[in-house]
């Protein structure tokens, strides 16, 4: 079997999870790979958990990543990242996670408590091989929107160098797949910068 690389994007309905998977798959295709993505949507779209499975060079392997085969967990939300990690991540897994939380309907209503971010981080560290926690709060504030989270996370991912996808191909895929190129370009650069400052620390 070829050298397989498996990415799971975890988030909440409305975060643009599926389109993030499309960008990565498109970049992989342009690099001559044969990606496959598996998407969970439908009823789960209404504010529920959304997962996108991406296998960078799958040929005709199934769309779902088997247990113990997860290489990169790209987390758009901390709680959903932990949920995904519990199911699929191992020491083989690198996690790159946005730590901006989205409360659940019940935690908003004060019926349950959203877990402490420090606890989520600790747990992720215990499960995954490597964890990079990002705070997109600054870019959200600067751009006045959360819509560019995907581009921000992709900027961080490229800088991490964990995948074989090149910056050039990802940027081109962002340009062809996402709207609002100027906004996404800014967010992408912010993601790169924030990731670099993480590693420098």
């Amino acid at each position, binding site marked *: 079997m070829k050298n397989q690389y498996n990415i799971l994007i975890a988030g909440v309905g409305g975060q643009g999870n599926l389109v993030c998977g499309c960008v990565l798959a498109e970049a992989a295709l342009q690099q001559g790979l044969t990606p496959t993505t598996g*998407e969970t949507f439908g009823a789960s779209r209404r504010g529920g958990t959304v997962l996108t499975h991406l296998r960078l060079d799958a040929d005709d392997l199934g769309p*779902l990543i088997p247990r113990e085969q997860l290489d990169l967990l790209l987390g758009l939300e901390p709680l959903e990242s932990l949920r995904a990690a519990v199911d699929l991540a191992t020491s083989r897994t690198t996690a790159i996670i946005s730590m901006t939380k989205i409360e659940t309907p019940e935690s908003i209503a004060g019926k349950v408590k959203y877990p402490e971010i420090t606890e989520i981080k600790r747990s992720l560290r215990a499960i995954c091989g490597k964890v990079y926690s990002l705070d997109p709060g600054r870019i959200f504030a600067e751009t006045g929107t959360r819509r560019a989270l995907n581009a921000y996370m992709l900027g961080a991912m490229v800088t991490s160098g964990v995948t074989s996808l090149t910056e050039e191909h990802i940027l081109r895929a962002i340009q062809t797949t996402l709207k609002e190129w100027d906004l996404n370009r800014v967010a992408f650069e912010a993601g790169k910068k924030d990731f670099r400052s993480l590693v420098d620390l």
Partner: protein
Amino acid sequence: MESSSGSKVLMSGNEAIARGALEAGICFCASYPGTPSTEIAAALMKSSQNHDIYVEWSVNEKVALEACVAASWAGIPALCSMKSLGLNVAADFLLNVNLSGTGAGGVVLVVCDDPRGHSSSNEQDSRFYAKAAYLPLLEPSTCQQAKDVISIALALSQKHRIPVIVRSTTRLSHSRSVVKLREIASATCTTSEELANAPYNVPNPHLKHQELGMKLKEIAQDFEKSKLNSVSGGENTDTLIIASGVAFRYTKEAVDLLNIPSVQIVNLLTSHPLPQKDVVDWIKNRQKVLFVEEVDPFIEDGVLAIAAELHLDEIPTFSGKRNGVVPFFGELDTNTVMDALRSIQGIPQKHQDEQDLNTLKLARQMLIPRRLTFCAGCTHRNVYWALGRVKRRIKEGLIVTGDIGCYSLGVFYNEAMNTMQAMGSGIGTASGLGQLERFGLKQKVVTVAGDSTFFHACLPGLVNAKHKNANMTFLILDNSTTAMTGFQPNPGTSKQRLGNTVVSIESIVRAIEPSHFEIINAVDIDAMIETIHKAVEIDGLKVILVNSVCRLEEQRLGKTHEEFSRVVVDINLCKGENCRICTDQFSCLAIGWNENLKKAEVIENLCIRCGACIPVCPHDAIKGAEP
């Protein structure tokens, strides 16, 4: 969808099926939206701007199939797509037209099953319709195959004059991979005179049945000679796996991960009728045969029937859903196939590290659920809230029968709905309950259905209720769109596609002349409580048309709520922990809990300022802010 021949593009299984339809020269498509099938007709609808293809969202799957078959009778190649449960609706027609035959145009019937019921109320295996109706059925495994199989299915339908079923499942329909395109058919479609000269009916069903049986035998022989099914793997002739659909891909990976490349795998595309001679060749003299398919043992049972003709010493040990090696319920994945292979090959399970298990256990304890809920400001919540209040006022209580749509979430909302079954079953069951007073039923009967469901399957139930004078109240939650599946227009939608006409729900209901009819606004909760209360107390068939709003649709159309005044909680009036009616019972997403103040608060960026929650607070603490 529009890329040129020879190019390699990423496509979902559903988009690939749609592209396959264009390449095959399909000129007519009718469908009813339903996950996971919706994107097939949606993609073709987009393409209809550039290609000579007619596409419609029919009122239901039966009408869609009837329309497609009619097109084929007139010589126009047609494709009809639907979800698993949709085929139940269309089945009445399907089990006639299989006998009378389709036309020269040909009909491809695409059914998308939903193993595990991710977006469905069951996980039915629709392949049994192929057996019941004696129809050929093809199961593609990859997006490429999903595209290519449409031409094959259409040719088969045109040759044998019967519908040909193509079956997908959620993980094929909703996965994307690389597809190499062929040329889109350029020939234009023109109707033939055939229909006028050849009546399609079933005068002698038994003779037609005989004829169909012979067609099916001939098709099985064609499948034997074809290259549609393939055998891959190594030299090990002891063990064979027969896999179909997306499960074939899980099987391939399971074999790779367990490092047993020597076993052989059949990728079976022609699940019905089985290529009998090939099957005998595949299984004869093997030690073990494993079946990997979703959901029921369909191929397994077919092969077991063929195996009965083998000599005893040639029969292998069969494993699959019948002996429990593969689970008989739920969705498969690579891990379940690995477990099945370990079981039949005697490979020990991997031992999990104690410390890892403990880490996972601790993490799981932290995971609070993220449940599905109504959107902020969703008017369905208001209706259920009002029903809850009416329930309290009526000493006999209410029975609420529900239906299929976003409002099905009422099952989870303060248990507002007592039953939820199939499309249109709410009014049908209510019509029955409405006769049970004579046997002692005390509760008042209420049923709810949305606008798209109203057109899909509620009309016969409504007429029945009127005709038999059933004692019940019917709430039509009309938000003017098919929200659950992605905002497809239905006959009641105010903004229609070019050439389509609005059909008024109000006019239909008035024509039926219920004992009592009212139209109310779903944002005004107080008025809704009074109106529903009054209606349930009247005898006979009562209908209330509830003008509702889909907030997602509003958002999609770019509507903002800036012009309305903000909604705020007056913390001096809020009773805090002692009350919590707004946060715990009404539960709009935009009403939060302020931990520091121990009071409710409105979450600005979620609130759509509809004000529906204002009368919900018994202490008048929720109010519109001064402008």
